[in-house]
């Protein structure tokens, strides 16, 4: 080893330079994770503002225009700033250690793909302080709301989306190159841990659809500034085209968010069940088929645009078909736990909650996939409840599980189990109190994205807000627990950390040295 990483003892200039110029996959993984947590807190703060305003009917705290900016920014920051970078961070930390590679394949691009992200979000968040306010057209930014009727700051939004798209594409290319070219001898594709598999497939999805998002915002940019009319009916364009292009990106995007989460729980559940994952190869094929199908179902987000009946039926049946590979996965997780020697450490609790709540969200997804019924559910709180069940209880719960699971390996210290469990129960109960009532609100007809609502929706909204505040509080506890682990955690020296854990990352020292697998390990 030439030299260790600079620490604060070397002076802050050296310490800052280490992080700014780092090409180490562990450093970059850490940067991604901290950045995504910061964005998670920011997006969470926006959500708290939304729920505070919706605590009671009538306008209490903020202007409706600002409310629209909050719903938009909450969605954008959470999807592109919190969840996606969190999983890229996990990929950076774990993929080289899981496949026995010394680092990522393209370390300098890795540095670039992280360091442009803070600029993208600085640009996006700065629009809130500009004249005209930030983006207010919903995170799906449908034209013409985001073109003809958008605030002038929409150009900053477009620029920000371009940068974060470039970052995602570079990150994905790096992951693909690492997985395809840098596996240790003997590490065949079908021996890779499932987290690596799900990320490999996710990375291909990202390379395929992030450019489509870039295309969509580029067309918006041209419509707004250069007189084209892709989405403007006055010039022969069609606003519905925007929805098609957006969801051609957007539907694979939801699997981009959830597939790495599948990978995480597929690592954690076998560990705490002390059994190998049930149906490994069916998991791989299920992941691949979900990824393929994500490209052919996009219009189920737009059943109400006036598609011909044949289109509605096609997209309805194709969507329902996705429940099959997803069901295979849920079956495999449950079967892995069946007759296992289960223990309920914090990562396992979050993983089990993931399986239960994600399945619940999957069922409401099936309800939404019924084209005829969707006419009623469309754009109501039922949809909001559905996608928070799959995104929060799916992606965020699994991300939390991942942090608790690998944190001892990363920093060599054990987190506080009691605090972790307390956090879990507050998060689990708070989450359900926040989002379960939103199903009822949606079925009763409360539309999403409004700053006010009719009196008949008052009680459940108050309940929902209380749950949201609880869930928010749990995240503060999470932050506190992680920082406390790093500063005061009980040292762990056993490379294994968890007795039932399998995989190459558990064969290196704890805490993981700055450089691992400089000589490739033998994989039998």
């Amino acid at each position, binding site marked *: 080893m030439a030299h260790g990483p600079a620490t604060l003892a070397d002076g802050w200039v050296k310490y800052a330079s280490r992080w700014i110029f780092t090409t180490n996959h562990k450093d970059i993984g850490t940067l991604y994770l901290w950045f995504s947590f910061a964005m998670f807190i920011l997006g969470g703060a926006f959500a708290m503002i939304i729920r505070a305003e919706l605590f009671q009917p009538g306008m209490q705290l903020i202007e409706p225009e600002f409310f629209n900016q909050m719903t938009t920014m909450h969605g954008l920051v959470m999807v592109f700033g919190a969840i996606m970078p969190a999983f890229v961070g996990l990929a950076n930390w774990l993929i080289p250690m899981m496949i026995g590679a010394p680092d990522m394949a393209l370390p300098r691009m890795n540095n670039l793909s992280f360091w442009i992200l803070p600029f993208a979000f600085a640009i996006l968040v700065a629009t809130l302080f500009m004249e005209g306010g930030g983006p207010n057209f919903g995170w799906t930014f449908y034209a013409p709301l985001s073109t003809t009727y958008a605030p002038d700051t929409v150009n900053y939004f477009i620029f920000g989306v371009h940068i974060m798209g470039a970052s995602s594409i570079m990150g994905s290319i790096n992951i693909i190159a690492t997985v395809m070219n840098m596996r240790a001898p003997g590490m065949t594709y079908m021996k890779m841990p499932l987290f690596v598999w799900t990320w490999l497939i996710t990375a291909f999805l990202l390379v395929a659809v992030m450019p489509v998002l870039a295309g969509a915002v580029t067309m918006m940019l041209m419509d707004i500034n250069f007189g084209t009319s892709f989405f403007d009916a006055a010039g022969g364009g069609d606003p519905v085209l925007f929805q098609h292009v957006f969801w*051609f990106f957007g539907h694979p995007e939801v699997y981009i968010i959830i597939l790495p989460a599948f990978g995480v729980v597929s690592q954690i559940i076998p560990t705490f069940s002390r059994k190998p994952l049930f149906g490994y190869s069916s998991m791989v094929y299920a992941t691949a088929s979900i990824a393929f199908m994500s490209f052919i179902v996009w219009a189920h987000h737009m059943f109400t645009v006036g598609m011909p009946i044949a289109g509605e039926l096609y997209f309805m049946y194709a969507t329902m078909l996705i429940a099959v590979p997803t069901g295979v996965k849920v079956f495999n997780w449950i079967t892995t736990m069946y007759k296992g020697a289960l223990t309920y450490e914090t990562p396992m609790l979050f993983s089990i909650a993931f399986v239960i709540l994600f399945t619940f969200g999957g069922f409401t997804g099936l309800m939404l996939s019924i084209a005829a019924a969707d006419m009623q559910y469309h754009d109501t709180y039922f949809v909001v409840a559905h996608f928070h069940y799959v995104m929060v209880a799916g992606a965020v719960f699994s991300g939390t599980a991942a942090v608790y699971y690998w944190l001892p390996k990363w920093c060599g210290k054990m987190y506080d189990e009691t605090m972790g469990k307390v956090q879990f129960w507050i998060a689990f109960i708070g989450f359900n109190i926040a989002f379960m009532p939103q199903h009822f609100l949606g079925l009763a007809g409360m539309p999403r994205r409004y700053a006010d609502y009719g009196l008949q929706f008052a009680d459940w909204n108050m309940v929902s807000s209380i749950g949201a505040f609880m869930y928010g509080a749990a995240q503060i506890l999470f932050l506190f627990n992680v920082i406390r682990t790093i500063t005061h955690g009980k040292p762990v020296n056993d490379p294994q950390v968890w007795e039932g854990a399998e995989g190459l990352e558990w064969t290196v020292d704890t805490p993981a040295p700055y450089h691992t697998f400089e000589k490739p390990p033998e994989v039998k």
Partner: protein
Amino acid sequence: METSHRTLLAKLLAMAVAMFLFAIFVLPPLYDLFCEITGIGGRTDGVYEAVEVRVDTSRQVEVQFVAANNAQMPWEFYPMEHRVVVHPGESRAVNFFAHNTTGEDMVAQAIPNVLPNNAADYFLKTACFCFDNQPLAAGEQAELGLVFILDPDLPDNVNTVTLSYTLFDITDRAAVAIAQQ
């Protein structure tokens, strides 16, 4: 950088660029083509050259006209006849009234839409003000003409066809086009 990384990087970058170009240059024309084939969106075709066809006097179809202004369009705009009854194959002329109520010269564009969707392909226009943009000076009024024929092959279950026009203000866009010429 190792060669294996370099070739993979080149391939993946090419894939990303191809998807970007696909989104901008392939998806929109593909969507238009799809709408044209299926008649989704109620789009009607361009100028129709009238040919001798049999007028199906055994059948009557009601054609309704709707006129709407896009937001921010201040003109007065309405059909002078709200509904006519025609035989398929028969050519019929109707007029729309437009009045620029503002104190400025403006240019408008009307965008047609036909309901039900499966009638769009059978609504043939031999002349229409929607084929051109419509400049009106400040305070000027005009009668805008439309001549149409319903194709005798119009599906049997269609008894009423609604043609709607939405009038858009394209003054800025037209000014740019003139400046560029």
